[in-house]
């Protein structure tokens, strides 16, 4: 059992990544305060990667994908999970090695494992964004999405940002050798000589149950449609007022309302195209305005 003790807890996995990427000069920022589907939506990625100024940031992002909820019954699928997100601009020439060292920092001995870069190109239609890269596999498990962004908000990027997205639950399950996300050890401590363990299930299983029911069955679809319309309108007003950051918050609200409507199963094919198009159009305008307000960071 002593070997068990050395396995990193969920919170230690996060702490090790934070320490490693801090050493690489990343700004360790905090999760965003608005619901997002992935760390890419956080303005520290979407907006900061638009201009030419060098940028390095790393953060945990709670990611909400209502359609992926499984009522706490599926050992791998969650409607709410955590990503660890790293962005570096411009992408350094030795970024693959830098990344691999982060796995070493997590306790993965590269010589003992099969680490591979398997083609996987990424596209985010609501953000008008796409990039090329890989899934990084460790012994057949997807450990990280590794992407060189080519476009964000429909804008050709220059220079290019590299984005690394670790699926924290999956990675921790691999490191701890457990087969259900709910069995992950989040933390343990000593309570008067008695070892107390808190699992991922202790922290989140009830969340998954309740939010799956809410997202799939209960959420008021008229309210969600109204929210979509109102936030889209407010984003437009912010754009007119020359305020890209508040505008972007409302774009994120739209995106979340859309994801909820999707989970409720009320979005038809036409609807889907229309809603995605509306969010993408707003995201593009935010990106353009952001560069106008902040400049593109290029030497004149």
């Amino acid at each position, binding site marked *: 059992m002593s070997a068990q003790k050395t396995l990193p807890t969920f919170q230690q996995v996060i702490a090790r990544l934070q320490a490693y990427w801090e050493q690489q000069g990343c700004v360790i920022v905090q999760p965003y305060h608005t619901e997002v589907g992935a760390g890419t939506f956080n303005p520290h990625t979407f907006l900061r990667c638009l201009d030419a100024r060098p940028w390095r940031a790393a953060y945990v992002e709670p990611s909400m994908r209502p359609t992926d909820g499984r009522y706490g019954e599926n050992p791998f699928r969650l409607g709410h999970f955590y990503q660890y997100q790293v962005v570096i601009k411009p992408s350094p*020439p030795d970024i693959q090695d830098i990344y691999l060292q982060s796995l070493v920092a997590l306790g993965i001995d590269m*010589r003992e494992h099969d680490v591979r870069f398997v083609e996987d190109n990424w596209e985010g239609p609501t953000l008008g964004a796409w990039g090329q890269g890989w899934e990084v596999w460790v*012994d057949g498990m997807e450990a990280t999405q590794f992407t060189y962004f080519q476009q964000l908000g429909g804008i050709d990027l220059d220079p290019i940002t590299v984005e690394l997205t670790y699926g924290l639950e999956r990675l921790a399950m691999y490191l701890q050798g457990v087969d259900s996300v709910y069995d992950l050890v989040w933390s343990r401590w000593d309570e008067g000589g008695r070892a107390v363990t808190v699992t991922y299930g202790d922290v989140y299983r009830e969340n998954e149950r309740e939010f799956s029911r809410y997202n799939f069955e209960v959420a008021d679809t008229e309210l969600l449609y109204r929210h979509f319309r109102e936030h889209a309108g407010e984003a437009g007003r912010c754009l007119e007022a020359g305020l890209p950051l508040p505008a972007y918050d409302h774009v994120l609200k739209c995106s979340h309302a859309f994801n909820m409507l999707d989970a409720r199963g009320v979005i038809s094919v036409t609807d889907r195209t229309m809603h995605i198009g509306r969010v993408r159009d707003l995201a593009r305008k935010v990106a353009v305005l952001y560069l106008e307000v902040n400049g593109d960071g290029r030497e004149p």
Partner: protein
Amino acid sequence: MSTLLIEVGCEELPYKVCEAVVRQLEGAEGAPGLVEKLLTEARLLEDGAPAPRVLVSPRRIAALAEHVPSRQTANVQDFRGPKAEIAYDAEGRLTKAGEGFARSRGARAADVRRALVDGTEFAVVRVEAQRADAATVLPGVVAGLIGGLQIPRGMRWGARPAGEEEYLRFSRPIRWIVCMLGGAPVEGSFYGLSFGDVTQGHRVLGAPVVLDKAEHYERHLEEQKVVVSQHERRRAIVEGLDARAAEAGGAWSDPGGVLAEAVYLAEWPSVARGAISGSHLRLPDPVLVTAMQSHQRYFPVRDGEGRLLPAFLYVSNADPAAAAVVTRGNERVLGGRLDDAEFAYDRDVAEGLDTMADRLRDVVFHEQLGSLADKAVRLQGLVAALGAGTAPDGAAPGGNGSGTPREEVLRTAARLAKADLVSQVVIEFPVLQGVMGGLYAVSGGAGEAVARAVGEHYWPLSATAPLPGTLPGALLAVADKVDNIAGAWVAGQKPSGSRDPYGLRRAAMGIVRIALEYALRFPLAGLLASALDQFEVQGIEGLDDERRAVIVAETSAFVRERLQALLLEEGLPFASVEAALAAPAADLPALAARARAFTALAGRDFFEDAVTAYDRCAALAATDEAAAERPVDPTLFAEAAERELAAAYEAARGPLLEALAHLELESALKRAAGLRPAVDKYFDDVLVMDDDPALRGNRLAQLAAVTSLIGRIGEFSRLPATQT
């Protein structure tokens, strides 16, 4: 003479790009590849030098060329200038024009000579191109190699190097370049990257290595755990798969074709075996295979009876000594996927295909064409029409294999065909559409015949893939494809050029292949019209008569184009196919039978007689468009030959049409050939273009009748002219 090495080091390239790079760099028989082309242009390839070798792995693109000279090969060329009378003055000195010519070729005035070309005297000059050192030319070859590769979806990375206007685009970032001639590194740079003599070994198991000689490239890399030859890697993988499968007591299989990918997913490949827990083996075979092959790229293992063994094989890029740990990791990943699949499968079986079919109304098939439930209703209507027009059970291969009446099997299968699209397993593994429907039909008690029809209705999956094995399956497959094609036209989204997002050309080819195999003799236009009927019943608007006629004509032509492609693919001559497809035959087997018969029978006497009879009559009949509309009036016959042709025509007509209806082409052609003597005598004895318009008109009408009768067999004017 030395060996040249060019190596372009990359971050991991997609396997399809690796395959494309090999093809482009190697070229093909009779079409030199990019490496040979660049070296030839740079005059760095001696005559008779062996073709350069191309070595591609996920992290490197390399070319090795032997017999590369240290200086460019000689290049002597004669250039012709102005006529001598212009280039020289009366004293024989070069004029301004003559001097200009020498200058323009970089030659001295003294090098200009006179020479006779086709009897005229010109000023000529012989120029020997400079022979530069290979080292000065090679940087251009490297740039030509990287820039000359046609790579789909290039990407950019990092920041633009100072002084570069544009980003370099390549499939993945380029990180190092090696260029060596023999033992000497070639100096140069490309897009901010300096050439060197250091290559990278395996990402984890190897180290960077300084190459001492270009020809030692593969050996150096092997020491650093990189098998750079794609052929060697493939060989090693296949050998490993064979050995590991034998250890498991079976043979490996690869229905998803992941071997091609595996070759470019590892630089130091080894094959290992993992275990599947016995409890997972209760999942249906196709689910297990798809869970292994899709995404994870594992190879299933089957025993001598074809049963899946509780094992999978995978290709690793790790140290083979670490296999135990790596295998455990892979087993857990697959175990997780199979748990997931089990969860989905059990939910599907519990729900049942009937309930899934009810949920189809919530799923949009196409925004203008309604839901999947609407599609299912159309399919029921279509298979009813198809079934009614088809020979009874047993007349076609397959049969229906049950005691249930065929109409009922078809109706049920059509209702259930699309239901699995809302199943959990198909949502997880879309390639299993149809397959799961068939399995769930069995578990739901719909019967074997329905299950097979549902399971086969997407078939054939490609131009060469197997056809449905039962008649209900074949009819449902045709109905599904016809609905897709007609639907695309109704929605205004017909394919054009290379744009065929719904795979309609493949669908049309499927219809053709099934119709020929099952001798389905429904008239094509009627089939497409009945597909339109289904849309009309569902209230799709704008299908007025005129639009319907256009759609039926265009979609029929679309399907016939596939038939034409298939027949040409079979090796039939273009003219035979043309002659057959222009015939007024309504169904696909009838058209195909004609093309095949024309090819097989061409040159036989009766065939030539039939064609001659047709050609002679058609030539004159064509001069009067109205001739075919006029009845022949026997009272206007003036010559015996006219009466004889009329008698021969009447005698041939019935048997000829009867033979055609049964696709007995040889017999039909012989009946047509039987008309030839009467036709020949007719042209000997009768002046068709008589001055009397009544006689003339009647004679043209008679020729038009003969033309039209023989023309039912084929449009013989499309054949090359025969000797008569």
